[in-house]
């Protein structure tokens, strides 16, 4: 069932068109991630769905009904903000209960739902503290708790993990994914971090300059990026995008090959190059190789502990089964 549908939705701020008309469908129970570089309009798109911004043209449909003119509170959506937006003068308990209190639920029901949400999120011990006395991860959980108690049709997350440190981010990523599996509620998640997008999403929407570049499952996007932007954005480290004579050999304007699909050898191979900086991650080593045939250096993954010194001569061989071809407009060639 299509739960949230955008029909020709566009948004202008003054004369600037931030989001040109676009269509998007979000199915029930899906975990959808909007991903794109800063300023690509992903947060604006989320705010349009939430109703915090008015659409300039088009329609937002929620559960098949036109919600374009419905105020945010009545859309049945809950949002988790980047800054968590907790109310600093209220205890955690009151923060979580706030939407219920506004909805006029009776005290006993409020207390029951708050306890329930707190136990799901391991917040039971902190219910009487103020947000100022909590760590970043705990505040994040309170913000999620405030969203859960409303039992919304869908959750909206606006870069919720960007204020956390790297280790905590990985942990919260798992927690949110787990929460999604448990609640089976639709979630729309905005991030600029493609790792978050790849690990959490059922469906990724890649945006650039307000336009949807590609919609698909993480592996779809990884294996079949529809243009050079998506190819370069998804995957870490980035795909090597190479233009020139070598690309012409494969009947393409640009060819793309991921670091993990290039074999490196010190004796023989297709492209000759010189080893630049190596990044050792333990399990993998990423080596930057400068090849005379390409204008830009390539990133190559070498598994294990390959012993290549700076300036050494190496040979690279691409795995042709994983070669991506793009035309002169950057569109994928079939």
């Amino acid at each position: 069932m299509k739960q949230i549908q955008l029909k020709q939705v566009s948004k202008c701020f003054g004369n600037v068109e931030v989001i040109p008309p676009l269509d998007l469908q979000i199915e029930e129970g899906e975990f959808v991630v909007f991903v794109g570089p800063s300023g690509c309009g992903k947060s604006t798109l989320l705010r349009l769905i939430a109703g915090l911004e008015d659409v300039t043209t088009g329609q937002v449909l929620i559960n098949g009904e036109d919600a374009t003119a419905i105020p945010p509170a009545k859309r049945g959506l809950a949002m988790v903000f980047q800054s968590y937006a907790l109310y600093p003068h209220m205890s955690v308990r009151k923060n979580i209960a706030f939407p219920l209190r506004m909805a006029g639920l009776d005290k006993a029901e409020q207390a029951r739902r708050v306890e329930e949400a707190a136990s799901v999120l391991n917040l039971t011990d902190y219910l009487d503290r103020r947000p100022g006395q909590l760590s970043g991860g705990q505040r994040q959980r309170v913000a999620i708790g405030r969203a859960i108690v409303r039992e919304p049709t869908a959750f909206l997350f606006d870069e919720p993990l960007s204020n956390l440190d790297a280790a905590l981010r990985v942990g919260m990523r798992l927690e949110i994914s787990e929460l999604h599996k448990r609640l089976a509620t639709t979630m729309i998640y905005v991030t600029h971090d493609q790792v978050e997008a790849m690990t959490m999403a059922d469906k990724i929407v890649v945006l650039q300059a307000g336009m949807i570049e590609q919609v698909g499952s993480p592996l779809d996007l990884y294996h079949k990026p529809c243009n050079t932007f998506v190819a370069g954005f998804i995957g870490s480290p980035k795909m090597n995008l190479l233009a020139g004579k070598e690309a012409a050999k494969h009947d393409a304007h640009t060819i793309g090959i991921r670091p993990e699909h290039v074999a490196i050898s010190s004796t023989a191979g297709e492209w000759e190059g010189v080893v630049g900086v190596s990044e050792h991650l333990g399990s993998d080593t990423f080596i930057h190789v400068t090849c005379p045939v390409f204008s830009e250096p390539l990133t190559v993954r070498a598994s294990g502990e390959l012993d290549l010194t700076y300036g050494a001569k190496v040979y690279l061989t691409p795995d042709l089964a994983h070669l991506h071809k793009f035309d002169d407009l950057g569109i994928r060639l079939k």
Partner: protein
Amino acid sequence: MATQHSRSAARMMMAPATILLLGWMLVPLTMTLYFSFKKYLPLRGGDLGWVGFDNYVRFVSSSSFWPAVATTLVIVGGVLIITVILGVLLALLLDQPIWGQGVVRILVIAPFFVMPTVSGLVWKNMFMDPVNGFFAHLWRAVGAEPIQWLSQASLPSLIMIISWQWLPFATLILLTAIQSLDSEQREAAEMDGAGPIGRFSFIILPHLARAITVVVLIQTIFLLSIFAEIFVTTAGAFGTKTLTYLIFQRVLESQNVGLGSAGGVYAIILANIVAIFLMRVVGKNLDR
């Protein structure tokens, strides 16, 4: 200011200012205390020697003492209530994006730049004059008998004048506080189903608690010593004699420095009682 050396250097540098300020406070205070124990009548014999607590007893047993204390508290309380309530409302209004925002904000702040004597006289002669005042014309325009503001409703009139002067101060502080409210918090409250009134009472007002405390504390300090507005309007008549004004009358009109100084000491005590009371009631907002 980390090392021993820089700390002692800092102390040396700050010493002159600290000593000057201390002297500035201590000299008048000591002189007040000194005179309050003397019978000192500048035009009637000058220094007539020590009298112990005579002045203190006389000042309190005077029939004008308790009414003066009451008047002081009514004026301070009245002005605080009016400026805080109207200040919050005006700040909310000025926070809205409106055309000509900059000009409007400056206009709102303008009364604060008018000197107390001037504003007192303007109000007295141009607004509250029972014959030629603006209010008198207004009353007559609707066929009513003009009110003799400063004699029939003297205390409310004074509170009105002083509130007009202090409203910009309250508005300015509260406006900056409102502007510092995280917009995501407002949006979160909106998503959580709080309407305009809910957002105001659950999000904005608690956020303003600290700013309101600052406004109340600072205004109290200045309002306790209000003088010019009373001097130029009613000159202490019609029940507008505050403690400050009573002291002025004792020292300058009755030429009794000793009695006035005793009154000054009572004023210090009153100010401290009010301060302790305020810190108990609203001071805890500052700790958060």
